């Protein structure tokens, strides 16, 4: 593949294969496909473009240095990158060392994020689902997801019982799943 640009319709498997063989074009293709997902989630968590860009660089370089971190038999690349980026951004937000071994992260998700059209449709569906949630539920979910707050911290902030916060967080995540199951 050396000397030519990788085509945009390559599968994630083909991109990963190029990366595993040390082809820098594979990283360019990966960036073009998933940089917006990784960057936007990091930006939402950190609220800082420079810090979000650093997360983007860090996540992609980890994959370049060790492509074996992602096991394609245990999930899809796009969702995996999104989850890893969110974990790293929360670690950065809380100024703590990475608490999650990314090689252990297995992501099971139905929608395909590889294509631009698929990602756009999935994004609309997610936003619609979140918009239809009770605000207290969406608030608990977003505080846990984007601010990295524990259920205890959310409980303290909102004054809601711990058990209630736990239930709302789980129910919010499962609601997203159900939206894609129909």
């Amino acid at each position, binding site marked *: 593949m050396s000397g030519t640009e990788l085509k945009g319709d390559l599968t994630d498997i083909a991109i990963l294969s190029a990366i*595993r063989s040390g*082809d820098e074009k594979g990283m360019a293709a990966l960036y073009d496909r998933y940089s917006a*997902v990784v960057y*936007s989630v990091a930006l939402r968590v950190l609220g800082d473009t420079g810090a979000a860009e650093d997360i983007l660089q860090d996540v992609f370089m980890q994959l370049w240095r060790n492509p074996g971190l992602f096991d394609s038999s245990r999930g899809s690349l796009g969702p995996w990158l*999104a989850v890893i980026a969110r974990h790293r951004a929360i670690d950065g937000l809380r100024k703590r060392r990475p608490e999650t071994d990314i090689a252990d992260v297995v*992501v099971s998700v139905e929608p395909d*994020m590889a294509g631009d059209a698929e990602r756009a449709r999935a994004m609309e569906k997610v936003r619609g689902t979140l918009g239809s949630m009770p605000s207290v539920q969406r608030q608990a979910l977003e505080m846990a997801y984007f601010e990295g707050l524990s259920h205890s911290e959310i409980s303290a902030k909102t004054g809601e019982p711990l058990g209630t916060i736990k239930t709302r*967080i789980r129910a919010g*995540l499962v609601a997203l*799943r159900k939206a894609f199951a129909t």
Partner: protein
Amino acid sequence: MSVHEQFAEDLALHALGSLQGEERVALEKHLEGCAGCCRELEQLRGDMALMALSTAGPVPPRRSRQRLLEAVAREPRRVQAPARRGWWMLVPWAAAAALAVGLVVVWLQKSDLQQRIAGLQDQSTQQLAELQRAREVVSTLTATDAMRVTLVAAKTPPQPQGKAIYVRDRSSLIFLASNLQALPAQKAYELWLIPTSGAPIPAGVFKPDAHGSATVINPPLPAGVQAKAFAITIEPEGGSSAPTLPIVLVGAGE
């Protein structure tokens, strides 16, 4: 496989990375043996990935792509790629082969040297033994306290005798004498090698002991002289270049 309800909410928190303390320890222990809850954890992470999509919209700055590719270029990775094989790929193998050959040669040389050293040690041991025997012979022949007996026919009075043993190739000469008469003052016996041709050659000056015995061991001689006979004369203590008559003892080679 179903999710254990008591862990359902903790699974969501664990997916988010916010479960801590004893609750986290208990859940991770449970996950080790519960495939259903592991599957649910993967599903919840998938839900998290969907959540990330809600943020989609912002795109990284253009420089970000270049920055990444430059970082990638700074860390080239040449693993797993089926690299084209050039002659240089054989260098490590050639080096290994050369090393192996070198080791074999060194081993053979070492083995040869060891054999030679062993041979030299055997030879040295043998020579030492021969030297020891020779020393014992010479020591016996030259010992001042040795009893020297000359056997002659019965009722024959003792006669002066001398016995020369000469090896031409080594120019080695041993002379043993017995029953020699005492010498006048400032006189000594001198042994002569009489060659097959030419003048007699001085072969050592000596004086007998009180019993008339004497030995001459390897006097300085010209190399490879063919001896016809040996003779004894009486000469000044310092020796002479030519024998002085009369001849005291004389004997021809067999």
